[in-house]
């Protein structure tokens, strides 16, 4: 009996291990494959030239620049709102019903399918506000999409600042906002930075929200203002993978590599900040 149950355990653990391998091994393979086939395509010309010959040659420079513009715009919009929302949730909110509703709204905002954000951006920014398909519309759409990430991580960062810091400051007669501004916020900056960078990474990789709000199929010149359309890396990868026939495999892997490297680099930076902060934390 005892022996039997130990054998059952061995078998069960073996299957659990197998399940884990089934996830982790393909992830490794995907990353290795993109690096192996994408890295040889990367050279200065690929990164700095415009696409040529119907995107079958040349580089991806306008797509890289477009993505940088979009991500910057998204963060300019989402960071202040997200940070103040996080301050509200962590420092001000008392009304538990409203608090609960806000948290539910954040969960839902995080769960809305990305293509529905695209529809929303089209209806509100492109058509209703008449911004047209533009960097502005795309940035605002992406900004709303990454709001939940920024609020959640910033809130965690603010809440991890010990209560005693606030109490000491308040007991010295400092007002509540001054306490937040000079005591709580400085101590939460690494966490807020982490959330911001995670949001940037998410915005850089998304395709569906920018499909109808900004993305240009092929636009060799760089955008001149926020009311211009722009190319973007994820959309460019989609286009050369499915819409344009006979694109050299090297170009496709190269584009996938640049996009993946960009997103993973930002996530890595976020992880490093978080790690360093944890080590340094004295309380």
């Amino acid at each position, binding site marked *: 009996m005892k022996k039997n*149950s130990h054998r*059952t*355990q061995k078998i069960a*653990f073996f*299957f*659990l291990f197998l*399940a*884990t391998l089934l*996830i*982790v091994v393909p*992830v490794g393979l*995907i*990353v290795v*494959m*993109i690096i192996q086939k994408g890295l040889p395509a990367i050279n200065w010309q690929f990164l700095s030239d415009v696409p040529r010959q119907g995107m079958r040659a040349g580089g991806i420079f306008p797509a890289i620049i477009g993505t940088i513009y979009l991500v910057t715009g998204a963060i300019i919009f989402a960071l202040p709102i*997200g*940070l*103040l*929302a996080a*301050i*509200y949730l962590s420092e*001000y909110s008392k009304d538990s019903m409203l608090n609960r509703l*806000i948290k*539910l*709204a*954040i*969960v*839902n905002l995080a*769960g*809305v*399918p*990305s*293509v*529905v954000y695209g*529809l*929303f951006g089209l*209806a*509100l920014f492109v058509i*209703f506000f008449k911004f047209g398909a533009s960097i502005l519309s795309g940035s605002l759409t992406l900004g*709303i999409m990454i*709001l*939940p990430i920024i*609020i959640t991580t910033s809130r965690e960062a603010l809440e991890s600042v010990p209560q005693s810091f606030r109490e000491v400051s308040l007991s010295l007669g400092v*007002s*509540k906002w001054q306490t937040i501004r000079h005591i709580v916020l400085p101590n939460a900056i690494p966490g807020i930075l982490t959330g911001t960078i995670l949001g940037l990474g998410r915005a*850089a*990789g*998304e*395709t*569906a929200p920018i499909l109808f709000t900004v993305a240009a199929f092929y636009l060799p010149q760089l955008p001149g203002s926020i009311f211009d359309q722009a190319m973007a890396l994820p959309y460019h*990868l*989609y286009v050369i*993978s*499915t819409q344009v026939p006979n694109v050299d*495999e090297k170009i496709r892997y190269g584009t*996938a590599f640049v*996009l993946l490297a960009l*997103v*993973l680099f930002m*996530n890595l930076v976020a992880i490093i900040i978080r790690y360093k902060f944890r080590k340094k934390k004295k309380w």
Partner: protein
Amino acid sequence: MRKFKEFIIEKLILICGIASIFFVVLIFLFLLKEGLAVFNIVSPFQFLFGKSWYPISEPPQLGILPLILGSLLVTLGAAIISIPIGVGCAIYIAEVALLKIKEILKAGIALLADIPSVVLGFIGMVTLVPLVKNIFNLPTGLTALSGSIMLAFMAMPTIVSIAEDALYSVPKNYKEGAFALGATHWQTIYRVILPAASSGILAAIMLGIGRVIGETMAVMMITGNAAVMPQSILVPVRTLTATIAAEMGEAVVGGEHYFALFAIGIVLFIISFAINVTADLFLHKRQ
């Protein structure tokens, strides 16, 4: 003066605090504003259960049942693959794996969550699609099955991380109690820890499935995009999300097709809302 400034700042903070509620409502209102007009052309019943989706024929036929079934088929396939593997992996990480390996495994799974869906779609196109084509000897590998496998991978990070949290938050004395009674580690996991974490695991599964239903790019790139009633898992299908993404570019603003695509957006919004609210209830029940 200082007091006044502080008053303004606090009001601003309150406004940003409720911004999330505002945006959720705004998204829903704008979907309704643009989408409800479709019901002047077809009845809600015809829209949801009509078997043909020919939005540009004259007159347009706007039945989204093939798309709903396409989404369901792909989602069901992804759920069958991702639930056992995802929950199994969560148990392994939470209970079995050694501390050092645990961190590596968690990093690997976080990595999967970070890969943009268009990159996964591209990889699926060059690896999975030819594989499915050759194994089943099909005319095309762009099938519901390929989509299911790819989406299963996209659901797993969600399932693993939330289920692992749920397993981890089971009080340690449950485990110690079971050990003291002479149960093996596996018996403890199976009889004590899993039941105690069940509502959290259920929430993990629901959120994973929510991610699958809403996923757009990868699914559009590898399911073949045929808006017909699916007959099997080995034929091309088209999902609700892919339909919007593929067709909105050609739809005329203010036309029937445009309204219909927004109405699909309403359906997706309601599905994701229902899933997230229910999952949230399960997560709070746990605490």
